[in-house]
């Protein structure tokens, strides 16, 4: 709304409105000034289309020889306005959007959002145990698949393509399990306010037990390949250093904070979804570097396997959606031969038997449910750190405001602190150890 404009953004009136041309003398001036200086200082623009910057992250590095003197991030290239869009859909449709934020941690986004909505509705205790257990199960599998991508791409950026192949091979096994359970490999929208879109399909438990066996067999390979590997260690140790004071000040959570020695994990310190009843450990390191974060991720994957196993042992038959029919939407889905679709029984009921059921179905699908006015904050420990959701309702059928505190966004701020004073090649390692996903950073 500002009428003034920057000197390098010359405005031009068109039929579509004012168009600003931002290119021009700006960059040239920087280059000229740099050329005049008689040192070796140069400004390097890395990204946003560089394969080792994790998606569309732009790094602006000022280097002197091989040393990075200043490092800055340019973000926003993947901003899709998901938070704004949520305000124009009903509460249930929200999961379809939030699952696309940090697309590697879909189930965490969905769970955090649903926990927030359930808190606003006051139905936390009404969510069936089976639904909560399946949420935990999916989240822990998701932690594995997210860490596998982190380790795989991190390895690839060091030139270790074997790690990349191994990581994506194992992630694919987990994505197959997602596909079996939700019908989709990514962007599931499976966890809904009040429970789940549908129950586990027949045979899923056996399938998951088989999967656990395979993963148990494959996980030690990362240890064998990388943990003791001298090249790997030389590239990772003492790189991307961020101590506890720095982590706390910059709000960095997840493996970054735990690599500084603090065993802070929301699953332990502020449990949700019944995590206080599970037996697992929170690994830490005291090295504050990329190598410590790598070891923590490896160990967290092992702990996640333990949690998944406990979930499978505890699963009891039961409902996966709250009993309140005014919230439980759509719930009547079934897995047909051609994929997930409407349950034929449900259609028979609403179309042929019960007029009231049809009215309720119609109102729920067109209007959605109302959520009492107020605000709530729900947080889960995503693979990257604290994923917080601030939801506000004005008593209507649509969210009034949803804000995601994405851990990638917050953690990426630590990039400058980790990279300045280091080598250019170490920037890649440091950024990989933050594990930012731009879908989550930019939302």
């Amino acid at each position, binding site marked *: *709304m500002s009428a003034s404009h920057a000197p390098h953004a010359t405005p031009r009136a068109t039929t579509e409105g004012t168009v600003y041309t931002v290119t021009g003398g700006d960059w040239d001036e920087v280059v000229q000034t740099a050329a005049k200086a008689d040192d070796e200082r140069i400004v390097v623009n890395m990204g946003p289309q560089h394969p080792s910057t994790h998606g569309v992250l732009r790094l602006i590095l000022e280097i002197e020889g091989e040393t990075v003197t200043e490092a800055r991030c340019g973000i926003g290239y993947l901003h899709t306005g998901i938070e704004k869009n949520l305000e*124009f859909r009903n509460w249930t449709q929200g999961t379809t959007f939030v699952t696309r934020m940090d697309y590697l941690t879909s189930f965490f986004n969905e769970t955090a959002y649903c926990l927030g909505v359930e808190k606003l509705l006051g139905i936390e205790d009404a969510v069936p145990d089976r639904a909560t257990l399946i949420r935990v199960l999916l989240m822990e599998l998701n932690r594995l698949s997210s860490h596998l991508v982190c380790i795989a791409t991190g390895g690839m950026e060091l030139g270790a393509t074997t790690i990349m192949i191994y990581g994506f091979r194992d992630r694919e096994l987990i994505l197959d399990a997602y596909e079996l359970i939700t019908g989709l490999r990514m962007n599931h929208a499976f966890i809904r306010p009040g429970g789940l879109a549908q129950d586990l399909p027949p045979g899923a438990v056996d399938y998951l037990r088989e999967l656990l066996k395979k993963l148990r067999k494959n996980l030690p390979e990362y240890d064998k390949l990388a943990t003791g590997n001298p090249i790997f260690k030389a590239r990772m140790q003492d790189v991307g250093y961020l101590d506890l004071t720095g982590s706390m000040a910059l709000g960095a959570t997840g493996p970054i904070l735990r690599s500084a020695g603090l065993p802070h994990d929301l699953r332990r*310190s502020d449990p949700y979804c019944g995590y206080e009843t599970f037996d697992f450990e929170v690994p830490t390191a005291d090295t504050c570097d990329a190598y410590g974060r790598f070891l923590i991720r490896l160990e967290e994957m092992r702990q996640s396997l333990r949690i998944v196993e406990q979930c499978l042992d505890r699963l009891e038959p039961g409902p996966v959606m709250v009993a309140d029919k005014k919230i439980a939407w759509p719930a009547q889905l079934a897995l047909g031969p051609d994929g997930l679709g409407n349950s034929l029984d449900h259609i028979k009921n609403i179309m042929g038997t019960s007029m009231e059921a049809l009215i309720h179905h119609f109102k729920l699908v067109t209007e959605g449910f109302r959520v009492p006015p*107020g605000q709530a904050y729900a947080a889960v420990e995503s693979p990257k750190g604290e994923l917080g959701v601030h939801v506000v309702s004005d008593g209507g059928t649509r969210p009034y405001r949803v804000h995601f505190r994405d851990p990638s966004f917050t953690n990426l701020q630590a990039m400058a602190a980790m990279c300045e004073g280091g080598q250019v090649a170490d920037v890649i390692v440091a950024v990989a150890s933050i594990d930012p996903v731009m879908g989550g950073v930019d939302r």
Partner: protein
Amino acid sequence: MTGDQGSGGRPSGNNVPSAREDTAEPIRVQKGMFGANNGGDTSGYGGLVRTVMLPGASARPYGGPGGSFDEIADELEGALEEQGLVPENAIEKTVVDRDELTFHIAREHLVQVARTLRDDPALRFELCTGVSGVHYPGDKGRELHAVYHLRSLTHSRLIRVEVSAPDADPHVPSLVELYPTNDWHERETYDFFGLIFDGHPALTRIMMPDDWQGFPQRKDYPLGGIAIEYKGAQIPAPDQRRSYS
């Protein structure tokens, strides 16, 4: 339960909210019963007018897990008093809702309150999870809200701190000096809501292009989009579709 709105009545459970004084904030006025406002009044409920309020200030005791909300409030009020500040001036109201504690802070005292919350050994909210902006055009004179969630790792607690600023004077003091993590968060809130955080080292846009006009997450900013044709029917853009709120 789902039709239950207005005075902030909540479903019963073990988290019964504290009694309220009448300092609730109006956020919108609902006309009619079913939300649909295009077309004639076929329901007969079109004359209903109701103001939707956010939960108002709570009265003591605040409760919380193990009475911790009262402890936090006592500590904060005591610490502010020690610093020569009248707690009632700094803390506009204290809201307990859905098992969450919210302090509404007058913006001129925000930095001092945040510093106390961070440094007082009995409070120790060392981790700020950033700021979330909310735009309430219906809350006259307090349209823009900045909402902070502060976490104490020492005591395993979470509180919410909320400040507001009018649309006409969208200024809030920056907390970057206290919580460096708020750097990008405040830039994001500025970018989307036009809230100016005084004292921020470099308050520039972060998500939108530098030359963007307007603040996209404000309620008066349109979502945009175009109508699409689906099986012969025109489906309007999302913000043009019928809303039932």
